[in-house]
């Protein structure tokens, strides 16, 4: 037992030495997850800015202007429509006022995203409770749609809150708040994804490298057991994955001020469990590969289902139900769900218990499989 532990740690130690001597890879280990967070953070960050929105304010009273003043920030770029009036027929809605029509043309032509139109009797109709705002919207981009409606709703609330006006929307934030940004909801998944990419790539490449040099045979001509080899490698990679999680989390926290409600150590624990399983999977797959070129092709094989099926980018609810069973086979689903619940909902070990159990099963299966395959192909 003690001798076995010593052999395991010998493998861990030499693997870390290999990384230590390879400066470029070492840089890559830090740079890649950092790059991922930055790129994901900025591109998928979800902060929409300067959405061109036309305003047609025909209101005779003061309320529409009061409402418009409450649309602050740079999410929407409000612009008074000054297009020349012309009557038109909007399908399904009826006849618009001429000036609304003109603004609508702009949206139709793709030059603006939305129109906010206040009719002449807007203020007058408020007290009886039948005032209307016409929102013309290009709905082709969900984040923009959400930004326009969200901003409008915010302004409505601010303007009419407490006044008992018909526009006061009752919003119930179970988790998060109006401050919750896209990136907040997004960071847990990206962190898990970064760990997934790096751990699988390294484990796949490393085992193939051991195999190609005839080293694996040489190792098995010592008392080293395949389980010891696999655990030793996994430990070394866990150290690497842990360092990377710190980089990724650090970037998310410092660069994007991602809010973490729950326990950060618990989040790291989840990442570690997830990383270990990924290495097992990587080692298993690399057993099927003859060289590094073949091995690297397994990486997209792992990555694509993880990207598309796991609720990292789309909520699980957005995945067609016929595909849903596949989602529950992809481990990233559990890692991302657990991180999401911990970081955003502040859940603890008990609440994410199912995810933890799923990840433990993942670890056990892949490590056993890895040990089996590594031995078999020696």
């Amino acid at each position, binding site marked *: 037992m003690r001798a076995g532990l010593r052999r395991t*740690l010998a493998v861990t130690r030499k693997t870390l030495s290999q990384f230590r001597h390879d400066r470029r890879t070492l840089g890559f280990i830090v740079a890649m997850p950092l790059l991922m967070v930055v790129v994901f953070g900025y591109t998928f960050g979800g902060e929409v800015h300067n959405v061109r929105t036309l305003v047609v304010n025909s209101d005779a009273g003061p309320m529409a202007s009061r409402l418009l003043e409450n649309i602050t920030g740079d999410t929407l770029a409000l612009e008074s429509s000054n297009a020349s009036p012309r009557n038109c027929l909007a399908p399904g809605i009826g006849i618009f006022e001429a000036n609304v029509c003109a603004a609508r043309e702009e949206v139709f032509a793709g030059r603006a995203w939305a129109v906010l139109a206040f009719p002449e009797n807007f203020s007058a109709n408020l007290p009886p409770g039948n005032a209307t705002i016409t929102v013309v919207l290009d709905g082709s981009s969900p984040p923009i749609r959400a930004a326009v409606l969200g901003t409008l709703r915010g302004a409505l609330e601010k303007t009419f809150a407490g006044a008992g006006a018909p526009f006061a929307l009752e919003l119930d934030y179970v988790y998060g708040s109006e401050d919750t940004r896209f990136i907040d909801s997004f960071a847990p998944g990206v962190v898990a994804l970064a760990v997934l990419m790096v751990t699988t790539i390294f484990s796949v490449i490393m085992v193939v490298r051991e195999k190609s*040099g005839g*080293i694996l045979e*040489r190792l*098995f*001509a010592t*008392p080293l057991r395949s389980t010891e080899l696999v655990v030793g490698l996994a430990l070394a990679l866990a150290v690497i994955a842990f360092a990377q999680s710190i980089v990724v989390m650090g970037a998310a926290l410092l660069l994007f001020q991602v809010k973490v409600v729950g326990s950060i150590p618990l989040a790291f624990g989840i990442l570690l469990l997830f990383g270990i399983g990924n290495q097992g999977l990587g080692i298993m797959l690399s057993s099927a590969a003859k060289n590094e070129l073949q091995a690297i092709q397994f990486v997209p094989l792992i990555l694509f289902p993880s990207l598309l099926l796991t609720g990292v980018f789309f909520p699980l609810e957005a995945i067609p139900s016929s595909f849903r069973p596949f989602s529950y086979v992809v481990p990233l689903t559990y890692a991302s769900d657990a991180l999401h619940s911990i970081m955003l909902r502040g859940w603890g070990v008990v609440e994410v218990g199912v995810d933890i159990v799923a990840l433990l099963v993942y670890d056990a299966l892949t490590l056993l499989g890895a040990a089996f395959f590594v031995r078999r192909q020696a």
Partner: protein
Amino acid sequence: MGDPGFGAGLNTASRFRRLVGTKGPAAACRDVAKSFGDIEALRGVSLEVPWGVTFGLLGPNGAGKTTLLRVWLGLAKPTSGTASVLDHEIPPRAVLPRIGYMPQDLAVYLDLTVGENLALFGRLVGMEEEEIDRRTDEVLRIVDIAERRDSLVSTLSGGMRRRASLAAALLHDPDLLLLDEPTVGVDPELRAAFWVYFRDLTKRGKSVLITTHYMEEASNCDLAALMHRGRLLACATPAAIKERTGARNLDDAFLALVREANAT
């Protein structure tokens, strides 16, 4: 086995057995066959490697030499037949720390230093840290790369890399050395030094088994086994083999034995 006798110098084998604390031979196999799919790498080989000898396993590429080594190490499971090393049936996991193995492929990590490579293998066979440190100096002197202990293997020349690999096999002072083509790419001067060292080891009762396809190398061995297409053609002292075939050198002896085998 068609054994023409071990010849002089081998009567000491039993004394060495006591020296290394073993009852049987260093390595033995009986009727071992091994096929990989359609390819029959070994077709019923029976062989004994006694204690205290340098044993040359000779034959052209594809003769089955490496497969036989892998069978003894437990890396390849024979299709039929039995084999043992150091009194252990294969796979010989319990006695692996007493075996030193140098494979034909360069089995050291290119991205580790020579010292780190040796430390890894030392730890894997259960050596203590101080012992590893001390022995590393010793074996690196033997293979003449002591000054490259802290160099990455990737920065060494081909011959030096092979020497590092040999050093890893020698590190734990094993009772049985299985060396697969250890002298490839090693210059003659160093090769001669290796043989002196191997003799030293056999004087201490250890056995050194070397595969090679250079026939003349076998004249350095106490015993030589000639293999051809998975079969054992002869196993005797080099002198006895030459005498039996009436050949002047082992090359000719080998050719004569192949002709003889083909004729029957």
